[in-house]
């Protein structure tokens, strides 16, 4: 596992997400309303919708395809749906977003 540099924090839209390609995986990084940056696999467990295009509310993203709600801290889909995505460790250092892969 290594820390990789992603982008400046302000390159992610406020209360929004951005897709990141790293090696073979596609990762969604989000900038939450409380300022935190979190990252999960950019594939909804339902039908692989791009979560990075979803609507953010608190630490939950709502998939743009069929409105599944994914908790970004645990990676779990919220009931009544069932499923999960991989979560990634992130940190912000001096305005720069890092991802641990």
């Amino acid at each position, binding site marked *: 596992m*290594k820390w990789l540099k992603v982008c400046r924090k302000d390159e992610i*839209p406020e209360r929004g997400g951005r897709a990141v390609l790293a090696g073979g995986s596609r990762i969604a990084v989000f900038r939450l309303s409380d300022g935190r940056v979190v990252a999960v696999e950019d594939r909804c467990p339902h039908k*692989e919708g791009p979560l990075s295009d979803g609507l953010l*509310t608190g630490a939950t993203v709502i998939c743009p395809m069929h409105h599944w709600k994914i908790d970004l801290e645990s990676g779990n889909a919220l009931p009544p749906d069932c499923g999960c995505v991989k979560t990634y460790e992130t940190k912000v250092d001096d305005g720069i977003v890092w991802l641990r892969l």
Partner: protein
Amino acid sequence: METKKKLVMIGNGMAGMKAIEEIIDINPDLFDITVFGAERHPNYNRVLLSSVLAGEMTVEDIILNDEEWYRKNNITLHLGKPVVEIQRGYRKVVAADGTTAAYDCLVIATGSKPFILPLPGVDKEGVITFRDIYDCERMMEASASYRKAAVIGGGLLGLEAAKGLVNLGMEVTVIHDRKTLMNMQLDEVAGEMLRESLEEQGMRFRTSTLTKRILGDDRVRGLEFEDGSRLECDIVVMAVGIRPNKDLAEGARLFCNRGIVVNDYMQSITDPSVYAVGECVEHRGKTYGLVAPLFEQARILAYHITGQGLKTYTGSVVSTKLKVSGVDVFSAGDFEGNGSSDTVMYLDRKGGIYKKIVIKDERIIGAVLFGDTADGTRLFQMMQDGTDVSEQRSTLLFGNTMLGDAGHSGLAQVSMMSPDTIVCGCNGVTKKMIEDAVVKHGLTTRKEVTGCTKAAGSCGGCGPLVDQILVSILGSSFARSANAMPLCDCTELTHDEVKEEIRRRRLLTVGGAMRALEWKGEGCDTCRPALNYYVQSIWPKETSDDPASRLVNERMHANIQKDGTFSVVPRMYGGLTTPEELMRIARVASEYNVPAVKLTGGQRIDLLGIKKEDLTAVWRALGMESGYAYAKALRTVKTCVGSRWCRFGTQDSMGLGINLEKMLERVWAPAKLKLSVSGCPRNCAEASIKDLGIVGVDGGWEIYCGGNGGVRVRVAELLCTVRDADEVMEIAKAYVQLYREDAHYGERTSVWIERVGLDRVKRAVVDDPQSRGALAARLDEYIETLGEDPWKARIREEEERPGMKPIKIDARAVNE
């Protein structure tokens, strides 16, 4: 640490526990809760007792909250301990076994007891009431050793009891004092048909018969009636009605009339620290015995007791359904009518179908349906909404199976549907899945069903069907008026209340509105886009867009597809294009390897399968305006070629269509807006299924509105006829602005017009020139605030600050 307030609940029935559930839902940490229940069983669904008696369910099946649930929610539960005294001076209650509990807030939910006729001999063995699990058990026991049963009372409860006893193999005679069965819910015709149908199922009846006394020694042997005749029987079930349990409250000097009298917050009018809910309550002179109003009361109580605001209970209109298999009966409101009302009726005695709707001042005030009750939910909804039915009198009785409801025809008969029938086509939810969820989790509203199963959670087209399934299981209607429904789970306010507050308090941003209106959390994908629309439509000059509150399509200005790529539809005014445009489109399609090029229903061209990162380049290469094919905004104006080319054309439909589209392009609306213009009454541009459809006639134009060709087909209605194209433009402006201001977010014009009535639209847009002028002026002002074409804006932004491309990181770039 602050000590919690103590809440004591007397009564462990459906209304009381619903109130507790609602309170916990609002704030689980507010109260220390203690519940006293007189019965030994945990809380169960009393509505389903008749199903237990009929052998369709077991006692376990109808338990709502098991003891584990109480433990999990830290509720102290005293089962089998009836409270015998409330000491208001000391704020404590005393149970029969001496248990006491102090309270800060007290809720009385003691329910009701069966009324027992004061007949000689009622104390004999074998006289049973029908109220709780114990009664059910006694009836089931009796059926094992006896054969003949008499049920006194031909109302809802009596008939359900009688049916249960028939199922248990007994010979049952129902004795009713009136001529008509279920006379509280049915008129004479329906009562008569019900009797015939139940007789076919083996029940016997003696109507217009008063019982004089109960015969027998220790045990019941028979009944003697006022006319001297007798009936042999081994058990007597007394089901003549219920009386609120108010003795306890009266003993504590709380004011009671027929029940415990409460105000609109469900507080006793004597003592504000005492609340009451359910069948023991009298509110505005009425007592209720059906579950829907009781749940409504429970919600209001929870809201007030937790200090959440000022919602009030203003009474309920109730509807009833008899839960006897093979007999469909529905009744609501004032089903008899009087001199000032009139009636629409359909009667087919042989076919066993009877429908009657009572109308007063063009509003439905009551209905009785027998044999075919599929329309019950719809009629009850119209009754609650106060829908103007003047235009639909001739089709009112045949609603759901008629033209205009194509999406639902044939499905409406819930009872005929097999368990595997897909109810929600969007989410693949079957009838059985919904029924199981309702029974297992004790669901009572469409919203709860959606939360549990996702049914009706997407296009919403099956919502009415879900309501009907609820009705068929629970026996009375739970449909609540859409007007009174909160916008979403994040607030208690309705669409109209939210709009009013935004206007009154000058709320200019989504976040500001959520803070001012005490939103729960950061909103959801229902309320955030709605708020974003409302603040901008109400304060067009003062606000700016909040992209984080837009769903992906409107944020991207393109339509997301199933594989995450997007589709691009450039604008073609009036469906007209040029060779140059077509060549540009062709070049872009081949250059970017666009996998599919498709003609749309709105007379334009769709480029499908474009990657997000290619969108700006595609837009730039096209050099055309966005067609807004992704937006709740003006979509297209479809036209026929009209008098410019067609030998039948009487008007220049292409010219008018292009002008309309240029005027209204980029105008956001509560939902998508589709227009069309036809040049003659042959109507090739299909104006009759458009939100606004114009049809050229000789010497003028007919303007139609509120049409829809989608989920639920609706034929547009004639708004007015005008002489020239300028007038069409003026009417169109006023109509679109009225819709923008008046409709709920997400509500198409068809639904909106059904809700508010065509008359209201006509008055504001056609009849009153001042109102029309003001609406048109407001739209003009709004249009001035619209910026440039969004694709052009995005092309520039992307050059300055790329945000559409995924960020690529080199997995080898390591920082130690």
